[in-house]
């Protein structure tokens, strides 16, 4: 697959989804501003750290992942039939098409996550960049898992969506609690665990999506 073909697919899909993208960013900005960031007064610094993480990460992880899943589902067949037909009839392998099609929800969800983080920052709750990376990993992984639902029907589709929801939950738990009460390594264990798990999930989900696209029957 040429870089030109990749750009063409991503560009065409982003163009037809521009309203959804604008809506996603606007809602991320609003929720980022209004999300409560208050944490109850806790004297124990380790418990306070966990409480802070749990409150500050909940918004971007759950909200932006939901946006990512919604945008991923909108890539399904039927919504933009002319793009689907063109891409399917092009001489591209399933894995190549999967990578190109996956970039659209990934880029959209990344932008929405960045807008959310920027809104948190501007509202005075300066979330550290690590929180942005943690949230982004969760958003990308869950969006890629949700993409698999677009090429399935019935129970398999529900299962794919369930897996996307489970990905968010697992990523959140790892990000908040993986290194809870650890004084030696700081945040490194929690951050690394969440990033590795999300990376593995994203890789497997993308491969699976490529396989599904290669076998996909448009009829």
């Amino acid at each position, binding site marked *: 697959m040429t870089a030109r073909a990749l750009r063409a*697919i991503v560009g065409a899909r982003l163009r037809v989804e521009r309203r959804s993208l604008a809506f996603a960013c606007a809602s991320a900005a609003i929720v980022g501003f209004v999300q409560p960031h208050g944490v109850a007064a806790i004297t124990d610094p380790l418990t306070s750290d966990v409480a802070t993480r749990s409150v500050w990460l909940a918004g971007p992880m759950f909200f932006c992942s939901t946006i990512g899943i919604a945008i991923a589902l909108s890539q399904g067949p039927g919504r933009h*039939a*002319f793009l689907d037909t063109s891409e399917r*009839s*092009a001489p591209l*392998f399933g894995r190549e098409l999967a990578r190109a099609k996956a970039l659209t929800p990934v880029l959209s969800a990344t932008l929405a996550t960045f807008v959310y983080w920027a809104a948190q920052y501007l509202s005075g709750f300066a979330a550290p960049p690590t929180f942005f990376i943690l949230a982004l990993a969760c958003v990308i992984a869950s969006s890629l898992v949700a993409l698999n639902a677009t090429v399935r029907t019935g129970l398999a589709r529900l299962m794919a969506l369930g897996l996307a929801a489970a990905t968010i939950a697992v990523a959140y738990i790892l990000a908040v609690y993986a290194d809870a009460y650890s004084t030696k390594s700081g945040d490194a264990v929690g951050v690394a665990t969440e990033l590795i798990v999300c990376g593995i999930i994203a890789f497997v989900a993308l491969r699976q999506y490529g396989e599904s696209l290669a076998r996909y029957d*448009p009829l």
Partner: protein
Amino acid sequence: MDSSTPAAKAPPMHILRMRDAEYVRAGEAIVSPTNLDLAPGERMTRLCTSSREAEALAMMAAALARATAGSVTIGEYDPRVQPVHCKRIAAFVPHDPLPLTQIDAARYIAYRAALWDVDPSLARRRARELHQQLDGLHEAFAYPIVAALVPSPQLLVLDRPQAAFIPQIIGAAAECAVLIVQTEGRA
């Protein structure tokens, strides 16, 4: 004969060949066993009893859908094994018009040219020439045909095209074989 010189590869006898090709979905035979031979440059119209059958047959002929039984060969390739090679040979024109409210014609041609890795300036020039040959056909129907012909396919598969414009379409696709799939009563 010098054994080191590779023998010139003979062109395939048929650009599209179907042998008892069948498409079954949920126990229902949408396309009953079909036999079809299309030589390079040949034109053929195939009549189907329903639009579902026409769509399925056209998609099988363009390697977009796989036959559930029997065999389909496009050029020398089996779409079940080498779909990408088949898609370099066959171009598919869907029944539905291009939604010009979502994408304008120039952008659509550029997009399709990028997917087939056709030089943008060559694609524009070729699209202009082809569009002139399809004069009278509404842009929403003309541009999918133009876009399909820009990469110079060897086989053009048309899913239920507008019957009145078939001579013009065939004229524009002078260099390739054409399979027109129509429903009975529309041909």
